[in-house]
């Protein structure tokens, strides 16, 4: 069967289920169990359907593993292979532990997505109620069609939403708590971890490298908090530390940011001074600070703190901006590590001009005339006043024509003489007017009183629902063509007909109800 092509990750023999011996298979996407000597699975669960696993306590005689599904059902496996049962069970457990979260995320995401869609769209919700809750079609079928339809749309709407930046104080939120016995406890939430990763890509890299091969997650974070990288005011003592590389990377990033210089010439302190005094002139008695050996340890750590704050703020700022720009250009990959998020000085000159102009402008001194207007530049003023015209009908009225026609009309008006003999009688005229005015003979008509006044609202709403539901079913129906898979064929032949039938009967019910109400 199809299962043969699947990758089998683990096979455990002698597993009992419902008092039957059998073999448990863990495959790439599902877990399955088949009874001894038979060729098919009687139990098969997709990982995505599994909510959690439970194991029996260690001391118990029966070594069991229970799977609980999202639907609430559960399946229990009993490992009965004597001596190795415990080992078998643990191996299964470990593997499941690794596999489940992967699928869980996916499942959760889908679930969330569905929920969100139902909440945001009342029509869809109604449809869902009509079709799924009343079991006309299954939920799967309902969504199979919907989700793919909506992912594009959805991803668009999601992008237009503003990305939330990172709180600058996220590190401060991880206040260490003393646990009473000479230790510290840090509380990490996934939000904080994400903030750390987004702000410090190097840490994320380290995490990817080391977890879970070399360290467990817990160990990783413990080391993170112990490292001087986190406590930047402590001077590195040169001990082996996986984060020393991060620090170096940061240093490099900071340096590259500095050497890249600034784009706004108004804040470039380097080019501020026009003519610095030569060495040896001036009263500045500041001794050269480049010599670090004469600096005390404290001074060094102080300047490290300052550097760190600058870097941290720049990174937080960049992390906020990076998200917004990521889809627009792939090149931001390189810039993301140094915290600088924009392109280099290609636009230097115009930018300088703009900044200069900005800084000399006094908008309150300027009159309103200073407002920028765009001059209308017409290549052919003719076309502007006449608009686009199909080429064939070149012949439009010129102003001369218009003047002529006006004079003709004037002329005719002057010569107008009413022919009183052929006029309708006043009686006939007035009756015609009454007949034509609202409420008159000709202006009556049930046409105005449409169905929305005749039918009570609840019936209307019901009809509407029926209509959309039927429409949805028809959509399902038509989407089955061309019928090129057995599944579609099955769907078409089997239950779609059923479904339509159900819909008809519903309509019938509605019809009769309406009739009853009418009579």
């Amino acid at each position: 069967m199809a299962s043969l092509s699947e990758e089998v990750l683990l096979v455990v023999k002698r597993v009992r289920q419902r008092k039957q011996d059998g073999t448990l298979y863990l495959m790439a996407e599902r877990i399955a169990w088949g009874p001894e000597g038979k060729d098919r699975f009687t139990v098969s669960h997709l990982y995505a359907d599994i909510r959690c696993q439970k194991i029996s306590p260690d001391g118990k005689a029966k070594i069991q593993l229970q799977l609980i599904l999202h639907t609430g059902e559960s399946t229990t496996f009993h490992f009965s292979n004597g001596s190795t049962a415990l080992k078998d069970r643990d191996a299964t457990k470990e593997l499941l532990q690794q596999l489940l979260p992967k699928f869980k995320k996916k499942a959760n995401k889908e679930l969330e997505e569905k929920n969100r869609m139902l909440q945001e769209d009342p029509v869809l919700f109604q449809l869902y109620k009509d079709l799924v809750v009343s079991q006309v079609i299954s939920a799967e079928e309902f969504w199979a069609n919907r989700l793919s339809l909506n992912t594009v749309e959805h991803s668009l709407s999601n992008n237009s939403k503003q990305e939330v930046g990172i709180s600058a104080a996220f590190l401060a939120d991880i206040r260490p708590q003393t646990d009473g016995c000479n230790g510290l406890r840090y509380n990490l939430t996934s939000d904080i971890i994400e903030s750390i990763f987004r702000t410090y890509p190097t840490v994320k890299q380290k995490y990817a490298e080391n977890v879970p091969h070399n360290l467990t997650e817990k160990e990783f974070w413990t080391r993170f908090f112990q490292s001087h990288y986190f406590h930047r005011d402590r001077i590195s003592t040169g001990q082996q530390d996986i984060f020393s590389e991060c620090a170096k990377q940061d240093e490099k990033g900071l340096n590259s940011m500095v050497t890249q210089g600034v784009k706004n010439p108004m804040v470039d302190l380097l080019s501020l001074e026009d003519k610095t005094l030569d060495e040896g002139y001036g009263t500045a008695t500041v001794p050269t600070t480049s010599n670090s050996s004469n600096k005390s340890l404290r001074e060094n750590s102080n300047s490290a703190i300052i550097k760190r704050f600058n870097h941290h703020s720049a990174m937080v700022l960049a992390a906020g901006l990076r998200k917004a720009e990521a889809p627009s250009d792939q090149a931001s990959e390189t810039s993301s590590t140094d915290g600088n998020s924009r392109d280099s000085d290609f636009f230097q000159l115009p930018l300088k001009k703009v900044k200069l102009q900005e800084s000399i402008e006094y908008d309150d001194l300027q009159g309103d005339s200073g407002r920028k207007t765009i001059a209308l530049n017409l290549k052919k003023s003719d076309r502007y006043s006449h608009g686009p015209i199909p080429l064939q009908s070149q012949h439009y009225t010129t102003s001369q024509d218009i003047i002529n026609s006006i004079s003709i009309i004037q002329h005719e008006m002057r010569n107008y003489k009413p022919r009183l003999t052929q006029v309708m009688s006043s009686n006939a005229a007035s009756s015609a007017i009454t007949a034509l005015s609202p409420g008159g003979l000709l202006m009556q008509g049930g046409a105005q009183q449409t169905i929305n006044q005749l039918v009570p609202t609840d019936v209307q709403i019901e009809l509407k629902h029926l209509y959309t539901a039927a429409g949805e079913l028809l959509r399902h129906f038509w989407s089955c063509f061309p019928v090129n898979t057995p599944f579609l064929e099955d769907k078409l032949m089997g239950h779609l007909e059923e479904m339509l039938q159900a819909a008809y009967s519903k309509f019938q019910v509605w019809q009769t109800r309406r009739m009853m109400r009418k009579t």
Partner: protein
Amino acid sequence: FRLNIEGLLVYFPYDYIYPEQYSYMLELKRTLDAKGHGVLEMPSGTGKTISLLSLIVAYQKAYPLEVTKLVYCSRTVPEIEKVVEELRKLMDYYAKQTGVKNDFLALALSSRKNLCIHPEVSSLRFGKEVDGKCHSLTASYIRAQHHSNPSQPVCQFFEEFDAVGRQVPIPPGIYNLDDLKDFGRRKGWCPYFLARYAILHANIVVYSYHYLLDPKIADLVSKELAKKSVVVFDEAHNIDNVCIDSMSVNITRRTLDRCQTNVETLQNTISRIKETDAAKLREEYRRLVEGLKEANVARETDIYLSNPVLPDEILQEAVPGSIRTAEHFVGFIKRFLEYLKARLRIHHVVQESAPQFLKDIYEKVCIDRKPLRFCAKRLRSLLRTLEIADIADFSAITLISHFATLVSTYSKGNLYDYDFHQKTPTIANPVLHFSCMDPSIAIKPVFGRFQSVIITSGTLSPLDIYPRILDFRPVTMASFTMTLARTCLCPLIVGRGNDQVAMTSKFETREDFAVIRNYGNLLLEMSAIVPDGIVAFFTSYIYMENIVASWYEQGILENIQRNKLIFIETQDAAETSMALEKYQEACENGRGAILLSVARGKVSEGIDFVHHFGRAVIMFGVPYVYTQSRILKARLEYLRDQFQIRENDFLTFDAMRHAAQCVGRAIRGKTDYGLMIFADKRYARADKRGKLPRWIQEHLTDGSLNLTIDETVQLSKHFLRQMAQPFRREDQLGLSLLTLEQLQSEDMLQKIAQIAQQA
């Protein structure tokens, strides 16, 4: 529109005008009429530059013979470029109104680094490198060598300029730095030398202070500027320090060692030349006898700006015979060098005045005062004769020669002082500081030569101190306030924390835990209520480092980070630039940020925080200079003896002008608004408060003198809420913004007369 300023037709390129601009122009006109000097204080953001330019350009057009040139000195490169852009706007307006094509030539001049278009040279990063490289391509003997040996590289842009550039005058127009470069590229001429040449006949020159104040540069660049020029020093609140810096010299052992190698190189070169080309040296000898005479003639005929390094009496004499030949001069320098080395070997601090030094040098090594004075001049001549290509290599010996000339020329107001910087505990590293005590020496030639010198800035209070320390007599001194339709600045003096502990950066209590905590709380509270950007200034870099460290330990910074991002000025300019840009980015995108910075630092001097870039400025403490320095003490003594300025007055004046500079950074115009928080109880005292500029003092009510943090927060909230209301032109019109008709009404003119306060 067009204005009538006491009979002068002034074109003003806007539709509206601030009343204080009108008043400012009035005072300026009177100063020019009297052909005297002026000190004018007007708050930044009230259009000082455009007022200055409008009036002076109008004056130049009306009386072309009275005022031939405007020399506009500003401090930083962006400032210079801004001025030129404003000038361009004005000139465009002239052209539009009068229909006559602009016949003015205005240009900006900056160092080679900002003007060079040579592909190799301009790619160098530091100004000094650019200068050195440029010199090695353009020096006259290099070019002479190029004639005989075409493989010798020269700068084709300079060659091109030298060949044709001088004959063809640069067409009238406004040339900013980039325009000059463009023009240079189009013509293939060197923009730097073009600009230097063109300033002689330009109507308006915009450049930095140093081109006029630093004798070493002024001698090269500004020597031939016309006497009938108007000189404007904008942002001049620090002008005394610029003067002093340009006349002071520091000598370390390293300098002396490098000088030693320089001397050796010179010796070798001389002996080599003697063998090959003795005539050259003889020629130089002859020139020295003649040369100074010519200079004297030139000065008498009033062509040159005098050089303070080369005082008048030197010109009347020839270079003394003892150093006239090259070998003798080198020997002389060697002797002088040995003497300095001996002096630097001592192990305690010595302070002595110029005459003492000269006496000592005469007794020890028999060096007379007179040849010392000619040192700088003589060295320059020698370097030229010896065809030394890379001047940058000889900076050490040049420095020594300048020192020699300065020390022997200005016996008054100078001082040396041997200082020990304990770099490592065992090796003493003495430094010889030659400090100029008297800023008036450097600026004297400027006041003496040009008919009108205008000193202006947003913060010059108290006005009377500048004429005293710069030693000149102004004809006008005025301080203008800012007319406001709404009080858009809110100065508050915070004296106490919520725990009533006094907040002050006074030396005794500045490291106090409570003070630091209160400062932190103030910043924290403000970060929660002020939108967008906050700038905080500390009194010194070290103090900031300490406070940041202890705030970090106390977790205050973390709490601040919940509200805003934090950026901190560092001692590295590139790093700070980066932080600044990120700070602006954070203000721009709505996150809000705090910039921690240092008074007297680069940020406080050159960067504006307009609108949302600075909604609040917090000044932590009073930014006094480091008073324990001996040089400062000596200067204070000098000020007391010479100008009768008391030490404390000067120190407070100096501190307050820096504080005002810092807080003034936030307000750049009438549509702008900002909080100014002075976090030190000492600001409340009358002697401090009285030294703030009038436009800040006016808004400092008695109710805002000694606030606690809570009260400050309350007042700030109120202020910010008010300022957030829409502010339209109609609100301003007639009060702080005038149309032409309003300006001409009688009672408005009367009101305007009150804006200027004569000092």
